[in-house]
């Protein structure tokens, strides 16, 4: 399907709903959203003001859905949205917004700007104004099954490796298992520790779980690029596998946007509530911990801090779980300034890390994370998103900081009481 301006404008018209109309109606141009934005904050450039990134969408709303705007359009007084304008806006909508949601928490009139950016990307991608790298990632996700081009055999290789290392069988396609475990490409390629940690923790806790060859990938390029049709196709793989295997719950891995894609957007993309639950791995681990099934011994002596991934904490509501879990294994846990629901984004969410054009900007805005880490004085940072992890590792390297980044699941596995 070829992308055209007309399709883009149509997509803009389709996504505008009551909340968006109320948001645009309420904006008083106070500019406070800029103060909450990572990109404006670190560069000082006013063009990164969150509400400004929505200007083309706002004009479509005004011209199509308000009487005054329609009159203006009829009289030829309003400026139509053009291809040139969308080209100019592309870096604002994709490169300089991680959909982290800080602006939505701060806006005094309550505008959920992040929600609007997500919607605006539908029109941007339909009109062909999405970054090339994200188009490629989405194409791979649809055609190959994963944005990084990973196929099931790569997972099988990792399973073999994990089985050899842990002596624990990794269940595949197990009918009636309680949990279907998903992974992100990043974990399959860069962080095999995750699968190993899950195997050991679940063995110890007596959890019945499985992987599925047709639904191992949790990430969803469709929601990042802004294509609900493609996002639906990607989510449907997980839904089909979960229903086929009759699992009670699907576990979203240590990945931010995957959680948003499956937990919050999934049922809406599919047009029906799910017959199974969706939980983030940290929620499952916290439940096991509370039930006394996840026993740990000893505490990590290193001073640690925790980076809240935006989609898991601010946009996902998993706030206390990582803190309770860390409390059980960390002797010296230190919160960063602004930790929790107002934490600063790593700079690579919302598809920014998949967009090579955005790399210099992403490294520049990492300065805020640098300051946050320096304020704690730690050299070990824990997180629960493989994408945050790789983005932060790159940022740390760029600024020559000696800070190690670890996944929380893998940290817990280090202190697991095994073989009892």
């Amino acid at each position: 399907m070829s992308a055209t301006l007309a399709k883009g404008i149509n997509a803009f018209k389709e996504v505008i709903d009551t909340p968006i109309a109320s948001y645009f109606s309420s904006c008083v141009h106070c500019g406070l959203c800029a103060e909450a934005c990572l990109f404006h904050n670190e560069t000082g450039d006013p063009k990164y003001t969150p509400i400004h990134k929505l200007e083309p969408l706002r004009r479509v709303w005004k011209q199509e859905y308000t009487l005054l705007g329609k009159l203006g359009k009829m009289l030829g007084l309003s400026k139509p949205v053009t291809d040139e304008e969308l080209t100019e806006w592309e870096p604002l909508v994709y490169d300089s917004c991680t959909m982290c949601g800080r602006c939505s928490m701060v806006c005094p009139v309550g505008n959920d700007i992040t929600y609007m950016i997500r919607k605006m990307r539908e029109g941007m991608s339909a009109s062909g104004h999405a970054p090339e790298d994200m188009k490629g990632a989405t194409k791979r996700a649809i055609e190959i099954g994963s944005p990084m081009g990973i196929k099931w055999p790569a997972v099988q290789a990792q399973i073999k490796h994990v089985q050899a290392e842990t002596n624990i069988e990794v269940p595949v396609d197990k009918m009636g298992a309680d949990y279907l475990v998903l992974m992100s490409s990043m974990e399959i390629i860069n962080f095999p520790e995750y699968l190993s940690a899950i195997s050991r923790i679940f063995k110890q806790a007596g959890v019945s779980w499985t992987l599925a060859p047709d639904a191992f990938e949790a990430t969803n390029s469709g929601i990042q690029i802004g294509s609900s049709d493609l996002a639906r196709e990607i989510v449907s793989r997980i839904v089909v596998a979960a229903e086929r295997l009759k699992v009670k719950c699907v576990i979203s891995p240590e990945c931010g946007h995957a959680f948003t894609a499956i937990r919050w957007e999934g049922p809406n993309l599919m047009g029906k509530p799910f017959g199974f639950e969706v939980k983030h791995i940290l929620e499952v681990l916290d439940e096991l911990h509370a039930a006394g099934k996840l026993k740990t011994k000893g505490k990590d002596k290193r001073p640690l801090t925790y980076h809240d991934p935006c989609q898991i904490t601010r946009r996902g509501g998993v706030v206390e779980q990582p803190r309770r879990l860390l409390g059980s294994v960390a002797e010296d846990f230190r919160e960063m300034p602004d930790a929790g629901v107002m934490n600063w984004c790593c700079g690579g969410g919302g598809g920014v890390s998949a967009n090579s054009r955005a790399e210099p900007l992403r490294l520049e805005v990492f300065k805020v994370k640098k300051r946050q880490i320096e304020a704690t004085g730690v050299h070990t940072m824990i997180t629960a998103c493989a994408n945050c992890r790789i983005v932060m590792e790159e940022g740390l390297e760029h600024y020559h900081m000696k800070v190690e980044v670890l996944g929380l699941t893998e940290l817990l596995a280090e202190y697991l009481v095994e073989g009892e």
Partner: protein
Amino acid sequence: MNHLDLLTFARGSAMNWALIIFVAGIVLRLFEIFGLSRKQDLARPRTDSPGSGWRTMFTRSIPPQGMLKREPVTYIGGYVFHLGLFLAIFFFAPHIEFFRSITGLSWRALPSALVDASVVAAIVALFVLLAHRLNNPVKRMLSGFGDYLAWTVTLLPLLTGYMAYHHLMLEYTLMLSLHIFSVELLLVLLPFTKLFHTFSVFVSRWYNGDFYGRKGVAS
């Protein structure tokens, strides 16, 4: 037309028309917003948090952590202006008399001197906020004709009201007429400018609160 005729016109048919446009405009704008509808959220909420949207309508008036320090002028200027305007509109004895004449409801007025002070504070805040708008690169970039128009039509009733009350510049009847005309201008423009946030702010805050509430995040 002498000053008294002018005042009679301002209070009479001009006010009626202004109120009609004001109410019709608000109804139209609300229709424009709610007519679009929204899809039901099919994702199971994390916790049943009834009232999250309603709570956010009020809690959003409080600056989130660290924000007051970052933008003190916007926050403090905003509070002073809104509070000053609110007190002047609803707690000045002659205004209460006006509301009683159209709704039959009345309530206790604040001492005129206090209302007077709040009007001065609101006017000062408006000028501070204008200066900030012109100086702050973000605000300046976001601002257009509509922002300055909204500022002007908000200032005029405050200014003319103050001048009428203190018998400044013009003859009282004439100044009072101008005050009423400026209010009518504000009423007519409110639904069609960003001043409509007076009403839509409750809608947008509700949706924001509902969104975050479903996710288990207080907003």
